[in-house]
């Protein structure tokens, strides 16, 4: 009853009601504390669910027929709910917090640089997945509750500007503040090296943005101007990946390990069992004697006498011999076992291999200097980096190229003319992106149509058509319905998807 007296007397005091500050969450933070999580969200999407999506749609992976994990992707019945969370993760969890860093940087120019470059990165993924998206009106909380959708082309222009502004904000002067631990991509390097990596990252991203729209109608002037600004620029030669400190702790697994890996105690998850190699990619690698087969896929679990690699026909029905344990799991270089530190795999944003293949394409198309000869060099480096990221070596890559001398999809010199050269580059890029960045592989498949022969799933209910984009998410349909464009995911292509 003493407590009651205390209450009664204190009611006269003014501060009796001043108890509405949350003791559960802080109400202040700093840009250094906000940046890591914002970048981590981008890495998680691209290496997690979007990686799975892309690998399912480009013939790398398939659903084990006795599991029901990827029904929308296997039937192409993608709905507003399917990638609702990912849209939210990009806008609300990554882009908004990057904007907070930009708005509260207080002269910390390098933080602004990283935040703007990463915003550009996020917006490109959004535009490549969904097409027209909110850009100018976005991230304005209840001030603009129904953001207008900007044409994907003008989003692309905005991305270029974000990249340029970001690069311009890089400051390596003596008085500059080093992002250090706030930078979960290159923060372990000294300031000058760190910001040089960011500059290369920005250039490579710009290269990706320009290449992507290089054949789109009415984009010539932007593409030409963009490449002019890249003249003499240096690009990524190492893998750019975010890693906040992935560990074998609950909630701290790397995105790919979270998506299709193992448990805290190292046991297979159902997701691991549900995700199997696709017959198309498994057969493609086997037929071209590609050593990466055994890195990208594991042998069939049910056959213990020898190493057999067998992919699933996507959308096929479960039957004896066609169940999870009868099919090749995703490989030990993509989703490593717990004992091999699979939980710590970094989240690849742009791989070194992708950087070289982008340069190669820009050279064969004449946007960058070096011509076909230069492209051949970059092509070889791209293949080498692909082997290296999987734990193999450049020598093994060279041996593979040598052995495949008769195959124009391996031997670049055998590729005649622009089309064959592009096919070789994109096909090799598709292999290089297998399990690393499936979404980028899906974008390139939509842009170029390579790899040739990528099969429809047997269970498709789309009348024989691949989806060419994602449907707008439920949260936009509900909260911003008047602005959401009416699209058909099988026929309305993204502007850069011209054939």
């Amino acid at each position, binding site marked *: 009853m003493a407590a009651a007296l205390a209450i009664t007397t204190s009611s006269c005091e003014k501060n009796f009601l001043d108890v509405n500050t949350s003791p559960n969450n802080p109400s202040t933070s700093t840009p250094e504390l906000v940046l890591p999580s914002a970048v981590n969200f981008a890495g998680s999407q691209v290496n997690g669910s979007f990686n799975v999506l892309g690998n399912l749609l480009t013939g790398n992976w398939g659903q084990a027929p006795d599991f029901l994990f990827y029904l929308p992707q296997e039937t192409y019945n993608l709905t507003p709910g399917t990638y609702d969370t990912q849209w939210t993760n990009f806008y609300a969890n990554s882009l908004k917090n990057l904007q907070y860093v930009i708005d509260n940087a207080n002269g910390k120019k390098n933080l602004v640089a990283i935040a703007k470059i990463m915003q550009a990165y996020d917006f490109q993924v959004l535009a490549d997945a969904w097409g027209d998206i909110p850009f100018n009106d976005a991230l304005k909380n209840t001030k603009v509750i129904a953001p207008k959708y900007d044409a994907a082309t003008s989003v692309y222009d905005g991305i270029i500007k974000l990249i340029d502004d970001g690069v311009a904000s890089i400051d390596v002067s003596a008085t500059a503040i080093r992002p250090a631990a706030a930078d979960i991509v290159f923060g372990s390097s000294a300031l000058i090296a760190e910001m040089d990596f960011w500059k290369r990252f920005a250039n490579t991203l710009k290269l990706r943005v320009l290449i992507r729209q290089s054949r789109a109608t009415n984009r010539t002037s932007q593409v030409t101007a963009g490449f002019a600004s890249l003249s003499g620029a240096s690009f990524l030669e190492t893998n750019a990946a975010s890693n906040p400190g992935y560990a074998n702790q*609950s909630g701290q697994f790397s995105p790919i390990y979270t998506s299709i890996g193992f448990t805290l105690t190292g046991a297979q998850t159902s997701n691991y069992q549900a995700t199997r190699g696709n017959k198309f990619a498994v057969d493609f690698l086997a037929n071209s004697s590609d050593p990466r087969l055994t890195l990208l896929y594991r042998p069939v679990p049910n056959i213990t006498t020898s190493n057999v690699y067998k992919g699933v026909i996507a959308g096929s029905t479960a039957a004896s011999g066609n169940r999870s344990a009868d099919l090749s799991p995703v490989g030990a270089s993509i989703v490593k076992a717990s004992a091999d530190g699979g939980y710590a795999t970094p989240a690849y944003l742009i791989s070194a291999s992708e950087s070289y293949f982008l340069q190669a394409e820009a050279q064969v198309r004449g946007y960058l200097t070096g011509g076909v000869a230069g492209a051949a060099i970059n092509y070889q480096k791209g293949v080498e980096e692909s082997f290296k990221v999987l734990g193999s070596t450049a020598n093994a890559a060279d041996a593979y190229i040598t052995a495949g001398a008769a195959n124009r999809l391996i031997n670049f010199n055998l590729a005649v003319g622009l089309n064959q050269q592009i096919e070789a580059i994109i096909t090799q890029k598709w292999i290089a992106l297998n399990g690393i960045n499936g979404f980028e592989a899906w974008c390139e498949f939509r842009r170029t149509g390579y790899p040739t022969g990528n099969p429809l799933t047997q269970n498709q209910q789309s009348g024989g058509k691949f989806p060419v984009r994602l449907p707008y998410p439920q949260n936009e349909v509900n909260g911003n319905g008047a602005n959401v464009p009416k699209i058909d995911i099988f026929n309305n292509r993204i502007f850069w998807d011209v054939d």
Partner: protein
Amino acid sequence: MKKLLLASLCILLLSITQVFAQNRTVTGTVTAKDDGLPLPGVSVIVKGTTSGTQTNANGKFSISVSGNAVLIFRFIGYAPVTKEVGTSEVINVSLANTSRDLTEVVVTAAGITRSAASLGVAANTIKAGEITQANPTNLLSGLSAKAPGLQIGRSTGGVNTAVRISLRGQRSFSKSSEPIFVIDGVPVSNSSIQPSTTSGNQVDVGSRIGDVNPEDIESVTVLNGPNAAALYGSLASNGAIIITTKNGKNRNKKYEVSFSSSFGLDKVQKLPTFQNQYGSGYNGEYDQIENTNWGPELDGHMVQSGPTLADGSKNMIPFSAVKDNVKDFFNTGKTWNNSVAFSGGNDKSSFYSSFSDVEQSGVIPMDKFRRNTVKLSGSAQLSNKFTISGNIQYNRNITRTSFQGGTGATGVYNAVLNSSRQINIENFKDWRHNPFAGPDGYFDGYYPNPYYALENNRFNSMLDHLLGSMQVGYDPFKWLNITYRLGTDVSIDNRKQTFERTTYGLTAISPTQRPGSTTGSVIEGSNYERILNSDLLLTFKKDLNKDFSTTFILLNNIYETNQRLLSTTANAIAIPGFFNLSNAVGQLSGSEQTFLTRRYSFAGDLTVDFRKYLYLNATLRNDHSSTLAPSNRSYWYPSASLSYLLTESIPELKNSDALSFAKLRASYAKVGNNANAYSLLPTFNPGSGYPYGSAASFSLTNTYPDPNLQPEFTSSYELGTELSFLRDKLGLDFTWYQTKSSNLITNVALASSTGYTQATLNAGDIKNKGVEIALRGKPFSSANGVSWNFTVSYTHNDSKVTRVYQDSKILPLGTGDPVPAAIVGQQYPVLYGSKFLTDGQGHVVVGANGNPIKDPSNQVLGQVNPKHIIGFSNSISYKGFTLSGTLDYRTGNVIYSGTMNTLIFTGSTPLTTQYNRQPFVFPNSVIKNADGSYTPNTTLKTADGGFDYWYSVYNQVAANNIVDAAFLKLRDVSLEYQLPKNLLKGTPFGRASVALTGSNILLWTPKSNQYIDPEANAFGTNNSQGREISNTPSTRYFGLNIRATF
């Protein structure tokens, strides 16, 4: 019981009557006609004088009279009796019960009692006997179908399940739509903190009102609308449930021990209908490890079930349907319910004390619940001017159950539903010794043995709950009463959830598909909740002249809520079977959340009474809330009501037999409601996964706050009448109401491109209107012959969302397909989700492959709350026998059935066999032509008739799992025998009875519902209702009850 409730009031009236000396003494005993028991506190007045007395605890009186006096015996709830004394020295009187009692009082806000006649709003009181009719362990279950306007939902058939109440529909988007619960003047919590925020790993943890021992209840008054409860402030916009406990106010009651003991059995009531034609497999091909039934026809031949073990042994079973395999899984639940109470008092003080013990075992094996309650209350008159009373109730609940809901490895019922038709689940009980029942050998390649799941994944809770209050009254003057009351409601729930670490299939050699291994985990949690309530009331009474009298009450209220939720989790364990945080693999994760709100208020309440037939009541309240910004903290709201007793005001009607009573009433009220704690400022959360080691990161929350949030208001109009005909043989109560709730504090869902997923704003308006009708009848009533009472109640509520926010038309309450939602122009809430595309005339459109096409946009799939609720209670007595029963009928709403979804997935329902698993022409379907017109489809068959159709097409549409939620239930039945008095003579017993009771005995549902008891619901007491996710089926209860007093 009426007589006991009101005794104290009589004392008050009589204590001011002076007794004059007379010349002759008359004595006697006053008894009640119905049970022959003495009536204490009956006023005995000499007609034409002011002198009188009252009966003592034994019903005896003694009074001095002169000459040929006439005595008038009056007692509340009984017809007055007039007796000429004549020359008698002993006068014994028996008083007969009247149904109509103009002086009956009703407890309204803040413990204020008012005469029922003066109430200008709908209020229904349910008495002790009616609540305990079927011996419910949960007080709220005992209210089902017993008052108009009351909608009661139980969630599942588990032990100690939550019961959710709503009155007149739902009126808030983000705040609770439950009424305020008040026990003896103190607002208490009916919270239900679920162990998980998703549909997996759920437990029906019960809710706090369920902690009250129903035997301790004197009465429950239901104040249906905000009008009646305006004085409660914020929480009263949803009405109020006022619970009065046996709190020892019954002075002059004889000392008594009462005892109640019951034992009952619970049986699973409604199980889904199963098909017995096809066994496990795919595409007609048998599969020995398959949980779904898309295999060949069951023909009885011997097949291998499950994997071959390392030693080569195989489990061979006949390939034939085990028809009752799901039913056989369930146990018979048992409930022991014992309670004993001690009570009594003299003219200065009284006490009540009780102890109860409820022990339940559930229909799911190993589910156990035990509740012990202790209650002590008492009151005393310290001097002529002070009264004091206090009340302490403590209970401890121990809950030990398995998990339900969800589709993961821990949902027990889900694992049962995933047992194929040819599997005899009972054979797999002994998983420790039977190698085919253990994790390595159980037939199912995807789900665990349910017996293994229930024994190895456990929810344990130990809850201590204390309700206490103390009240001091002081009457310095005849016209002034000062009352101070302090009350608290404290509960601490210590929980431990354990999940076993399991590796499947170590010794199985073929086939190797086994369920995914589990890491095991331990979650230690502690939930602390406290409400503190302080009321200071000044009551002024004044008779202005012989026509007008007034009562004015000034109220100060202070209300504080405090919630503290702590939990620590070991996300994996090292040694299986050892459940301690020290056994963790990896770091422990923890969470801490505290919520503190405060409010203080001032209110005035004026009642003017004109000639005892016209009453005007007006209130005004001012709240100051901690959850709003200083500039918005203070808000005012008024109410007014009028009650007019027609039969009292018109002399011609006063003694009319045809219309024995008529009251008209009207009221208006406005009630304000504040925000939730911490809704005004933006905050940062730890970034996903952070901290990684020593690296920390924070992320802006995705809820955008409005620092200028205003209180939300509900305004309400109510008109009603209470009529009684033919000397109370027939009564009719009718209420019409309309409420408008506006500026609702809402978590508006935002398009994420704004950078936020929701914003806390003033948005949204809801209108509710409806009628509540009760028809009461007493066709026969004789003391020794047949008596029959009945009440038919009807409730209809029509709600409409009139605004959500700016241009948005839809507000989802949660996530999922379907999702409960507030949609402009629709009832609130409705289920909103996917369905098949139709041509606008209800014909489903099929595509080129013959499969129905999914509508690209979501649609409204039906309303969650029933349109019509009808309750019918009956009580027939003959001699000592009383047969009572309650029927409960609801219709007009739908429910999403997760059970149905699972059964279509597993191919266990007859729905999936109606076309013999062959492609078929979708009935009444159409094909869309190139020009946009439609042609009936008579030939084009679906692409598949098995799993690829029923699961991949049919089950992908939420509308196909929506079930008509109509039902008719025989809710409570009891046959009671009251032992005759002469039989008990010479025994220590005053009263004794024995009863056979039952609840949920019969259930009728529409033919289309082959799946669930539609009363099932998502767990807990929150607003996100209308969905069921493999909930434990509901049960029917049979019991035997013995009551005695001595």
